[in-house]
């Protein structure tokens, strides 16, 4: 769709559209919005690798594709390796990769495909220093197979294999800090982002494009289907995740931490704010909520310290 010039000028994010109507995501899907922003930031000269996850389906069945960019569908655990291979081939064949005018090689994988089964390939990718961008869209469970827990599922959440019930069998571990594992590789650029803050996300994508070497972005992407939340609340929930410091937005660049949101000067909103609207948290007891709250604040303090010391 052609956007008139005068409208384009008023938009704070690129008006170009490379993600088309007709995709098969659920209503209110945060992941599909994220994918749309990535395409806006990078445009058509992009090669995507997408492993098994909701996005495999979102793009559409053969012979259709909602993505106006080249896309290689791959096995669940291989995103890091495949984008590494693509990048190596482009280099061997003399193409410019990354940078303003280079080809963008983008891995787009879910939290399961990143935090769990794909962690090894991610690690290999980071450590070898390929010029590509890995984006983990975090909807906090295996949604494609019907809402099972992943390493990124938070404490107290209902999923189909942590179903709550009489014996209170809910997720008992805190969310795996994938970004910390990534940073431990001393990558040039790593950041968290949220679909509630597209300008921030696109700025980070552009930064990742410019900085040579492997970049990693963990994108918070609500999933109304899996979270048992109203389809019109996805953006609000994503914003509350940031405002409660449940999912703070920050950047790690060449050894330095920078917190973008929430403000470090103010107390974050209470975690209940984020838990509301979400059926997946409805089995939590008061004590459970307190455990989660303490964890969030503890992690927030840690991050603030890091930003203070390595800012």
């Amino acid at each position, binding site marked *: 769709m052609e956007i008139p010039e005068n409208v384009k000028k008023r938009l704070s994010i690129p008006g170009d559209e490379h993600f088309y109507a007709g995709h098969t995501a659920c209503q209110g899907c945060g992941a599909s919005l994220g994918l749309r922003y990535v395409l806006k930031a990078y445009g*058509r*000269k992009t*090669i995507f*690798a997408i492993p098994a996850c909701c996005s*495999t*389906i979102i*793009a*559409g*069945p*053969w*012979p*259709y*594709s909602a*993505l*106006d*960019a*080249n*896309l*290689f*569908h*791959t*096995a669940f*655990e*291989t995103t*890091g*390796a*495949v*984008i*590494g*291979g*693509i990048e*190596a*081939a*482009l*280099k*061997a*064949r*003399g*193409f410019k990769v990354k940078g303003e005018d280079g*080809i963008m090689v983008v891995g787009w994988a879910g939290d399961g495909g990143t935090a769990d089964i794909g962690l*090894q*390939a991610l*690690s*290999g990718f980071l*450590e*070898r220093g390929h010029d590509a961008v890995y984006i983990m869209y975090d909807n906090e469970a295996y949604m494609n197979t019907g809402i099972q827990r992943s390493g990124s599922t938070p404490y107290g959440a209902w999923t189909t294999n942590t179903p709550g019930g009489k014996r209170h069998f809910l997720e008992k571990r805190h969310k795996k800090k994938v970004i910390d594992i990534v940073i431990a590789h001393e990558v040039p650029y790593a950041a968290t982002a949220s679909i509630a803050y597209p300008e921030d996300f696109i700025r980070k994508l552009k930064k990742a494009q410019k900085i040579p070497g492997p970049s990693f972005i963990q994108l918070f992407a609500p999933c109304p289907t899996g979270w048992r939340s109203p389809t019109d609340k996805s953006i609000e929930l994503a914003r509350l995740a940031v405002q409660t410091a449940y999912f703070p937005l920050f950047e790690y660049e060449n050894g330095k931490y920078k917190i973008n949101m929430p403000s470090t000067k103010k107390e974050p909103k209470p975690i209940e704010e984020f838990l509301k609207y979400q059926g997946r948290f409805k089995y939590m007891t008061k004590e459970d909520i307190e455990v989660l709250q303490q964890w969030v604040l503890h992690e927030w303090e840690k991050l603030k310290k890091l930003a203070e010391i390595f800012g």
Partner: protein
Amino acid sequence: MAEYKPIRKVVSGNYAAAYAVKHARVEVVAAYPITPQTSIIEKIAEFIANGEVENLEYVPVESEHSAMAACIGASAAGARVFTATSAQGLALMHEMLHWASGARLPVVMVDVNRAMAPPWSVWDDQTDSLAQRDTGWMQFYAENNQEVYDGVLMAFKIAETVNLPAMVIESAFILSHTYDVVEMIPQELVDEFLPPRKPLYDLTNFERPFSIGALGTPADYYEFRYKIQRAMEKAKEVIHEVGKEFGERFGRDYSQMIELYRTEDADFVFMGMGSLMGTVKQAVDVLRDEGYKVGAAKVRWFRPFPKEELYELAKNVEGIAVLDRNYSFGMEGILFTEAKGALYNTNAKPIMKNYIVGLGGRDFTVSDVRKIAENMRAIIEKGELDVEVDWYHLKR
């Protein structure tokens, strides 16, 4: 065409593979160590370090699974790619082998046949590669180091013509680490034989974006499979042509998928694959001197399977002794099953017996072949089998 003057080098099977990779001007190599494959990727690294190859991206991956995944990404992005592995490594790649053939990517790999654990064993056994039978990969079994070198060069040409991946298979230590004279082909002549890859599709085409490997609904999946089978059938013709061309250019003819050795007037033949068949050919010479009318049938290409050539052979012999250095538990040797199956609906019905030999690197010698020949002769005279599957070396 420049005149062909071979360059003779004394190399191991693994180095023969590495030289072939160099001469094929491979662009991306994914590397992960496993004995006895490791010296292939080490030698390639050495070529790069010494400046002997250009434009070769070496990706030292963190596992075999990622090695194949990286090869697949690189091949989809248009490059000529290679990797090598053995046994456990190949098993770990299994899922991705399907991905390569399903996406129709001409990746070439060397598998150094090694026995599967447990118990741990680093010695020769074909079960690792044969267990990948249904992955849609072509499989070439090399008898000696020369065939490893020639096999890799031909594999690229064949794979890139039919858009299917190919595996060149050599035996652990017997070839991988044993030095022998290999006639190598001068670079410019390899270049004539194997020009740069022209990909069927290529992720660097941004004019008209496309996707590979999307969801295939029941309305289409079936046809995707059929096309792989068609490509396998076509591969038989291409193998014939490329093998013939190789013979015309370089003097070693590979036009037959089953190499026949002294089978013309044979009463019965020994059939098998890989380095085993070097021993068998030698034994055939000895046995011929001793009055046996025997020959050898070396199956070079296991996938696609040379049904037609097998039929031609089977029509003219009374018996086939199938030597399997592999086993499918609950059944029998894998080549035996395949060969019997291929002949079932034909008029050729030689007596066929399966000898399980050399598992996990157990020695297999000329005198073993002689014993098998005595047994086969008795069976043919009697007109019936003693046992169908004979665990030949078993300590009883």
